[in-house]
């Protein structure tokens, strides 16, 4: 057991996976000697050598396309896309290729790769360093999509993703790298050091893909969130004083529908919370499932709280970010409904 930031936990997961399996290969821009712009791969090249952790040309298409070839060959590539916002040149290789290889070859070839990318805003990254593109992955048949919200889950989920026989998109909320962010821009950043989930088991362990976690019990309403928004939800619930359950999905696909329906059928009220833009966001999928599965238990319409349907602005970041105030309004709305 050790205290870790999310960066350290992700780095530790790489270390453990690479020690365990010589086929685990790390590639990406600046991941080698420098150890990644967020330091998630620091020390890997020194420890495992340049053929197991190396820098790639600035070509997301090339990184994901060659990782596809390596995975099909039998390696377990774990590649880093520097920001999720940079992923688009490699999107075709993810959607048309990695996601479908097992299907189109009837299992003759497979693509067990992990594509890691920092996601989300709250760091003044502007339009091009703040996006949350998870719905672009969950909409694709053949991909698993994971979003951790704390160091312990980040390590366990990443190890599970590396061991998974299919391609996994691993979205790391960069606002959480160094400490939980509850949406209050005016308060000092907390540290993972004092946080229960900053305690990370040493060695190998998996947090299974497809299992959500109830991070706060409650009976009046359910907030369904993932990534940074888990911490916003917890802050909002604490401030509102309401008796609200908070679910951290952890994996968006496969989705832990049982966990969601059990909670919402119990509370009868549901808020879906994400940082990505509202329209056609993953919250729409959750809302549709909740109304289909929990219709007769619902006491109020499902409410979605999400990023506004605009590009992620720079100077207006605080106004864009769905913070605790908006969540508290949503809590009041569903409780009144």
């Amino acid at each position, binding site marked *: 057991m050790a205290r870790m930031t999310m960066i350290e936990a992700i780095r530790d997961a790489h270390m453990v996976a690479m020690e365990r399996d010589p086929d685990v*290969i790390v590639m990406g821009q600046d991941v080698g000697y420098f150890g990644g712009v967020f330091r998630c791969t620091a020390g890997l090249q020194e420890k495992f050598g340049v*053929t*197991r952790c190396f820098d*790639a*040309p600035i*070509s997301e*298409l*090339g990184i994901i*396309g*060659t*990782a*596809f*070839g*390596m995975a*099909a*060959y*039998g*390696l377990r590539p774990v590649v880093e896309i520097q920001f999720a916002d940079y992923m688009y*040149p490699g999107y*075709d*290789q993810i959607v*048309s*290729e990695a996601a*479908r*290889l*097992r*299907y*189109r*070859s*009837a*299992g*003759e*070839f*497979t693509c067990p790769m992990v594509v890691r990318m920092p996601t989300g805003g709250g760091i003044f990254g502007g339009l091009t360093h703040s996006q949350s593109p998870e719905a672009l992955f969950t909409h694709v*048949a*053949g991909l*698993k999509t994971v979003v951790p919200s704390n160091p312990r889950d980040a390590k366990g989920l990443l190890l599970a993703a590396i061991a998974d*026989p*299919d391609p996994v998109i691993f979205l790391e909320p960069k606002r959480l790298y160094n400490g939980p962010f509850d949406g209050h821009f005016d308060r000092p950043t907390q540290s993972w050091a004092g946080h229960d989930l900053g305690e990370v088991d040493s060695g190998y362990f998996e947090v299974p893909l*497809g299992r959500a976690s109830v991070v706060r019990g409650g009976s009046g309403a359910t907030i369904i969130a993932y990534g940074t928004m888990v911490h916003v939800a917890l802050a909002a619930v604490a401030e509102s004083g309401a008796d609200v359950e908070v679910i951290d999905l952890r994996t968006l*696909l*496969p*989705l832990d*529908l049982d966990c969601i329906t059990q909670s919402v059928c119990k509370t009868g009220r549901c808020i879906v919370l994400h940082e990505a833009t509202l329209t056609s966001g993953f919250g729409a999928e959750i809302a549709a499932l909740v109304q289909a599965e929990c219709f007769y238990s619902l006491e109020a319409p499902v409410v979605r709280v999400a990023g506004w349907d605009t590009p992620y602005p720079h100077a207006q970041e605080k106004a864009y970010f769905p913070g605790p105030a908006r969540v508290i309004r949503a809590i009041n709305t569903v409780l009144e409904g």
Partner: protein
Amino acid sequence: MRRDSAGGHALSFAVSDPHGDAVRLFVQNLGHVRGLITGGIAMSDDQERAPHLHVPEPAIRPGGVPDFSHVQIPPAGSVRRPDPGETPENMRDLAFTIIRVLDRDGAAVGPWAEALEGALDDEALRKGLRDMMLLRAYDTRMLTAQRQGKSSFYMQHLGEEAISCAFQTALRKGDMNFPTYRQAGLLVASGYPLVTMMCQVFSNDADPGHGRQLPVFYSARDHGFFSISGNLATQYVQAVGWAMAAAIRGDRHLAVGWIGDGSTAESDFHGALVFASTYKPPVILNIVNNQWAISTFQGIARGGAGTFAARAHGFGIPALRVDGNDYLAVRAAADWAVQRARRDLGPTLIEYVTYRAGGHSTSDDPAAYRPKEEGAAWPLGDPILRLKAHLIARDLWSEDRHRQAEAEVMDEVITAQKEAEAIGTLHSGKRPSPRYMFDDVFAEMPPHLIRQRTEMGY
């Protein structure tokens, strides 16, 4: 350092430096900049004009007389063969010529022919001819079957048979092709069962891919044939990744990327060359230039590059340009590139100059965009007739044996077709169950897919 600074650096230096040197430099630079500005004004001349958009057009369209005078064809045997270990800078000429082995009389001549000695015995040559004939007979029957509604789609190889058939013979078990839809000769030459290919084309219950993929999108791991994608060029960079994996593990396997002239315009092509250039894995990057990307002539993708092969030069990758209708030239070039890969000398790019004598697929009519007579006017001839002439010239073959072989391969194809059709075709017989639809999306079926399959009733 200060005195050597370029203008921009000197400017910022001057702002932060209290000493006179920097100020003097700053002033000098200002003067330099002013000189440029006045020079720019003075440079306006009477040759200046508004830009025009250059849209390349093929030499001839339907109604015109085919003209291939722009295809410079050196005599067979005239192109040098450097050692495979030669540095790329010293063999750039090989990207601007055409390596040819078979001359007009069917003789194999020159250094590339000499390099083949011992590589292909008489039986291998006859098999090469037979592979091409078998592929052509297969194409003929599958085209007809498509027109009869037995499959939804087909793509033939007419005129391009030598490239995939010959290339395959240079590989060994464990090597992996990342083909396009027009390299079924790789399967034919490696002895893949025709019946299985046909079951794939007919999308019947014996299709190893369970009918999910379009006809001709085969997958055959044991035959070194990677699953085909319909998104063009994606496989090119994947081949580089496969070869990088072999290099990481130290396995003596190579990968072969295949692409058409049109698809070299995709970013995947350029990404593949960057990664191949950087990591130098054992990969061979093949470009089949058959002159046409559906209705678009090769000049649209090639643009200002002299040849497709020359694209490799900017990446420091050795490039060959080869007569794609010459079975022996293809094999000789393949051997050269394979040798480079096996000696850990890195990637090689090869452009095969050929002509797509048929339509792009069963969905287009080439007469709508090029003269019907163009195929007959193609100066590099028919690959089957050229190898046949070589075998006859060497007394390894005869007109009689050829006629007999034509009947044999057609019999073989028809027998296989009967067997495949007895199982089923697109609209009749045993077809893949809709149940297969939900398998292989993931290794383990997640709950939402189990629910959907149940809802569908399977």
